[in-house]
């Protein structure tokens, strides 16, 4: 990033800040002397940069309207508008800091103990709480903007992390002959060596070999947020989500530094060593004034030297250890010491240090406190995927004791902090992953690597457990920076009984904030262990859950937000041109009405009408055992369904509940054509596949042809005459009677014709290959012109079918309706061999009907709302499922569920309409053409 030295300007809280090109927003603010970046969640304490790696919550700001952006990983761009959050009136002078002074009135969990007496007080308090809660503000104007997309990839080996271990793992696996995808969250490879360059000799050659390797794909600036079942990785790269399926996964995610727990450890100016190094080496910043480094490892000495080289006066190194092996290069060193507290109000101005025992104390004035006290491994992907980890005291971190299948880990996440160990561990993991995929590739045994774990140099010799919590009783030793949880809060919560680490988390809210425990996990577990008198291993950890990093909803939704599925039938454009009012039916668009319901009704009843039913589910079944399958799926009989015939059928579940209805046509000895309702097309498809999977021995081949066929229903007394003009087939009622199914040619197109009549007239349901749907549709309308044919929509169809008392599954039935009670008792053949729902239906038949679906005529000329209630003595008796004005009856008719004792023909039921009840009479017969003469004509 040093190539381009142009400088840019952006805005922070209303004033301009200059940034070097390539610098992060946080780096630019640091260089500009802006050290209060945010205010804490509860106490509104000033907070400044800490980790510089997108892990901690301290630099969260609103950037160009997007709330809660970590500006330490956000490159500064010209014109960017950055605003601080959660402060009033400003982040520099936040009046809500009063909570910091009141903090003894707000101990851990205080809100559970107050504000509920008397009862009306809670809503009042809650209003106030909801005014001050939360961090960022949503952007009502521009929040929906942004272009998101998704990508699906697969790979032999996925390596997560582009540090020393990851680079070596990728190279080893790729050299062994498998394809590798390396995912790295930084803009350039190298891991922490990018900001800790003196740790090891330059690795530019290694990076070059990885970048140029033909079998390695590198995905940079991308974070793996989840490792889901079957090594299915969710990756965020900016506004893109990548779904990567990997045969083997190597987790080389490294670790992040943990903060030291001492009083006022949250003051601006207290930083992690790696954060300081990132600012020094990546953002080219400086640390003017004096600094104190507190450490227990070699990194502390390196950062001290680097600070010194950059012009900072390093006044002391506070080393927790008694006998460190590192030398301080002339810097004053306090061995066996730690920091007790930081002083300052808006920024550090000094530190109090003491031996580990706590006394005697002495003050050192300084502007920066740099902490290098060890690491928390970035192991959440390992936990997510089911690896077993246990706290290892010699490593002072959790170590994998059992990997999940096809998963490996390498490098510092395994506790190997020596670069040579990490590199060879990476090679080992890379080879192991490759060998799991192609056994003859290369021998994995590499004894020098196997023993690396045992021989590695530990960071801190005999460091006391949880030495990173300083020995003092101070009240403001912050453990969880996101939620302002202190060491005392945690101890108090445990004293109250919340001693389990999970209960402790939920009560104290430790680790529940935006960083999800990245900064506080080590310390909270250590404190919990100490206070419970347990070991860290016994204390355990809270469950790691995806996403590993906060993940925008837009990235998850992808493009679907702007691209909702709409399904249109082949005749859709025609309907629109004809001025049809279109409506949604699931994802489909369907004509509701063209001219008017009475006109369309009349056309069907008097002459001929045509409706588009392409949305029906259509399934073709072939095979020797189809009959057996149908007999099993449907409660009615199909063994005796003759060639060229079609039959109505309903589908029930095991409980005998009616799921769907449709028709089953036999087009050949072993060939059947089935329809389902529009709404259940997908569900019935899965239902069939489910049962076919359970009966692999059956010879049934199933093809879903829903989209291959357009379909239309020609209905009305003149429909035969209309159709005759378009076909040579014999349409006479002898040749093609009611419930005939045939394949013939209409308007030059091979079609399937079913003589069925949902609307109660002579009718033909014609299934046409989709590409000819419009042609046949237009041909029929043209042929019917002399008979004044009219297209009709769903609204007219509803009235027409209601007059015939034909039910609609899901509308006239619900999750308790069986066919016996839904007025279809004839369809259930209990003398058949086993079928789905048989046992339940047999029981239901035995106990008799409790409720029944009946037809009714209302005594008054009003049309009640659907779902109006049927009342019996003022209590709930049932409900209306369909109703409307019937021209045939000249009044309101409908279908309703009522208690069986009210379901007899001619009985009166009471329907609740607008607060009063209106009587209605039960009618057994259909309201139109009860004998079916017209249907069969």
């Amino acid at each position, binding site marked *: 990033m040093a190539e381009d030295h142009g400088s840019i300007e952006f805005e922070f809280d209303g004033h301009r800040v200059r940034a070097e090109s390539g610098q992060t927003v946080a780096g630019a603010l640091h260089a500009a002397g802006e050290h209060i970046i945010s205010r804490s969640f509860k106490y509104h304490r000033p907070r400044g940069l800490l980790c510089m790696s997108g892990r901690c919550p301290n630099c969260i700001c609103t950037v160009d309207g997007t709330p809660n952006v970590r500006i330490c990983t956000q490159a500064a761009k010209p014109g960017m508008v950055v605003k601080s959050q959660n402060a009033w009136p400003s982040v520099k002078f936040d009046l809500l800091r009063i909570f910091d002074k009141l903090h003894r009135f707000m101990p851990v969990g205080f809100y559970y103990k107050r504000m509920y007496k008397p009862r009306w007080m809670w809503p009042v308090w809650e209003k106030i709480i909801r005014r001050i*809660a939360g961090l960022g503000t949503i952007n009502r104007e521009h929040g929906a903007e942004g272009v998101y997309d998704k990508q699906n990839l697969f790979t032999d080996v996925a390596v997560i992390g582009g540090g020393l271990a990851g680079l070596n793992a990728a190279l080893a696996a790729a050299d062994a002959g498998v394809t590798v995808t390396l995912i790295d969250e930084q803009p350039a490879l190298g891991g922490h060596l990018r900001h800790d360059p003196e740790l090891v000799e330059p690795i530019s050659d290694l990076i070059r070999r990885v970048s140029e390797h033909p079998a390695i794909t590198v995905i940079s600036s991308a974070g793996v947020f989840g490792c889901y*079942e079957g090594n299915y990785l969710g990756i965020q790269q900016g506004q893109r989500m990548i779904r990567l399926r990997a045969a083997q996964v190597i987790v080389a995610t490294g670790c992040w530094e943990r903060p030291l727990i001492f009083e006022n450890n949250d003051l601006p100016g207290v930083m992690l060593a790696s954060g300081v190094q990132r600012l020094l080496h990546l953002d080219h910043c400086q640390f003017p004034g004096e600094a104190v480094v507190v450490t227990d490892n070699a990194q502390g000495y390196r950062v001290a030297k680097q600070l010194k080289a950059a012009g900072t006066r390093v006044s002391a190194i506070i080393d927790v250890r008694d006998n460190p092996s590192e030398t301080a290069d002339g810097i004053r060193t306090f061995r066996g010491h730690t920091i007790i507290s930081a002083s300052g109000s808006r920024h550090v101005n000094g530190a109090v240090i003491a031996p580990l025992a706590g006394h005697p104390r002495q003050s050192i004035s300084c502007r920066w406190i740099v902490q290098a006290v060890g690491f928390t491994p970035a192991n959440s992907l390992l936990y997510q995927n089911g690896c077993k980890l246990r706290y290892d005291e010699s490593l002072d971190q959790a170590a994998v004791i059992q990997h999940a299948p096809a998963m490996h880990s390498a490098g510092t996440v395994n506790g190997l902090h020596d670069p040579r160990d990490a590199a060879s561990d990476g090679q080992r993991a890379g080879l192991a992953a490759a060998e799991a995929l192609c056994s003859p590739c290369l021998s994995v045994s590499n004894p020098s690597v196997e023993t690396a774990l045992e021989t590695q140099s530990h960071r801190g010799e005999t460091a006391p457990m949880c030495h990173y919590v300083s020995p003092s009783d101070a009240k403001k030793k912050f453990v969880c920076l996101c939620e302002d949880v202190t060491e005392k809060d945690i101890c108090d919560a445990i004293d109250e009984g919340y001693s389990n680490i999970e209960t402790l988390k939920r009560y104290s809210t430790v680790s529940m904030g935006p960083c999800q425990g990245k900064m506080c996990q080590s310390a909270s577990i250590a404190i919990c262990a100490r206070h419970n008198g347990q070991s860290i291993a016994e204390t355990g950890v809270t469950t790691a859950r*995806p996403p590993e990093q906060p993940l925008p909803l837009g990235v998850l939704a992808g493009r679907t937000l702007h691209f909702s599925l709409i399904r249109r039938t082949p005749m859709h454009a025609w309907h629109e041109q004809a001025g049809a009012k279109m409506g949604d039916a699931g994802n489909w668009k369907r004509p509701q009405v063209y001219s008017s319901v009475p006109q369309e009704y009349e056309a069907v009843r008097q002459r001929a009408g045509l409706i588009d039913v392409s949305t029906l589910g259509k399934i073709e079944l072939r095979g020797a055992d189809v009959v057996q399958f149908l007999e099993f799926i449907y409660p009615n009989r199909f063994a005796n369904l003759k060639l060229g015939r079609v039959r109505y059928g309903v589908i029930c579940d095991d409980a005998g509940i009616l799921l769907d209805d449709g028709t089953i046509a036999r087009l050949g000895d072993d060939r059947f054509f089935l329809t389902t309702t529009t709404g259940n097309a997908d569900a019935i498809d899965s239902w069939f596949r489910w049962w076919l999977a359970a009966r692999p021995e059956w010879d049934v081949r199933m093809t879903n042809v829903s989209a291959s066929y357009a379909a239309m229903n020609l209905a009305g007394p003149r429909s035969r005459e209309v159709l005759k003009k378009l076909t040579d087939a014999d349409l006479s009622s002898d040749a093609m009677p009611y419930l005939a199914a045939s394949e013939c040619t209409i308007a030059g197109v091979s079609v399937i014709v079913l003589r069925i009549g949902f609307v109660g007239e002579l009718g033909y349901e014609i299934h046409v290959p989709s590409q000819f749907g419009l042609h046949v549709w237009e041909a029929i309308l043209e042929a019917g012109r002399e008979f004044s044919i009219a297209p009709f929509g769903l609204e007219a169809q509803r009235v027409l079918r209601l007059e015939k008392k034909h039910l609609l599954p899901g509308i006239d039935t619900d999750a308790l309706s069986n066919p016996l009670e839904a007025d279809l008792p004839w369809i259930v053949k209990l003398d058949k061999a086993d079928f789905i729902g048989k046992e339940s239906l047999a029981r239901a038949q035995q106990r008799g009907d409790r409720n029944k679906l009946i037809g009714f005529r209302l005594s008054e000329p009003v049309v009640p709302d659907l779902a109006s209630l049927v009342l019996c003595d003022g209590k709930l008796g049932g409900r209306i499922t369909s109703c409307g004005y019937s021209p045939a009856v000249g009044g309101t008719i409908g279908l309703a569920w009522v208690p069986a004792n009210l379901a007899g023909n001619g009985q009166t039921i009471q329907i609740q309409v607008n607060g009063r009840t209106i009587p209605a009479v039960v009618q057994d017969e259909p309201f139109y053409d009860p004998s079916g003469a017209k249907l069969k004509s």
Partner: protein
Amino acid sequence: MVAQRMWQEHELKDQYDVVIIGGGVHGLATAYYLTQMGVRNIAVLEAKYVGFGGSGRNTAIVRSNYRTPEGIAFYDLSVKLYEQLAADLEFNVMFSQHGHLTLAHNERGVTGLTERANTNQLMGVNSRIIFPEEIQRIVPDLNVFGHSRFPIQAALYHPPGGIIRHDAVVWAFARGVDRGGGHVHQKTEVTGIEVQNGQVEAVVTNRGRIKTKTVLNATAGYAGLISRMVGLEIPIETHPLQAAVTEPLKPFLNSVIVSSTLHVYVSQTDRGELVLGAEVDDHASYSLRGTLSFLEGAATHLLELFPHLANVKILRQWAGLCDMTPDYSPIMGGTPDVKGFLMTVGWGTYGFKAGPASGYLMAELIASGKTPPKLEPFGLTRFYEDRLVGEKAAASVSH
């Protein structure tokens, strides 16, 4: 200030009058109300820690706008008990009754909600159908009139509905049990139940054997396993239910929003996080791992309702286990086959909101030996007698 302990740790006694298996809201509420009714020699056995299961994983919605008269009466009692729970237990459980809206995006949806509104009103529950203008007034941030694939047509508005601090309810009940003289035993796993001559005699745990004549199975996910210990098969299939939470945002959403067409529901806690969830997973499973497809679906659907949340971030996702019965209603009460064995199980996706009512009524049943009328419809025998309580339509997504 000296910390007052919420609950004590006790030695496991070798005899209790009542042993309750499961330290979630149902077990603890039953135990609490038992102590209130004078039955104090009782133990709640929890294999992990209180609130480990569904009680700590649910999305804390409380409502009573159910579909069937049985369901409505039951959940109405629960809402009323929740309203006075903070005072009863002297613990702020933060029940915020900011209203609950179930959205309908098509005609069928509107019909289903109308039916519920009519039935709710008949039963005296505050619930009504409202239309887009009023919906927009109540939820200004909702995409009611903007571009949408399935525009909102109406909503079932249930003002007493809302959200509660679920963990607090569990802790408060646990403290209530403790103060009332009952024992709460965490990390105590039941390994067997001894039955002699059709009567429960003892419960065997990893910490020892307990003599008792009355055992209550108040578990979820494992309800079938516990019932099988006395040789009882119950019609339960376990499905995971997933949820997720966003980073905290300045509160803008007071009501609970549910859409069964879009398979999503969302609410905003007092901390500012959005809590969102969907329907139970299609297939039966005991997996507590979340899936990516859940997150993708929930995000897509939430953005249909609130498009301007696209850059809001998900913090974590999780899953819980839901014991589904065939009619989406719970199983409460005893069984004629094994004396002394009672159940409050099959709580599906609607268990938390029922906690106080089920606890109160189960306690009444145990203390008096008589089944309270509100409990009657939910007995196990309804499956033998085909007397189902059809809440499937109302429960599908609105939990």
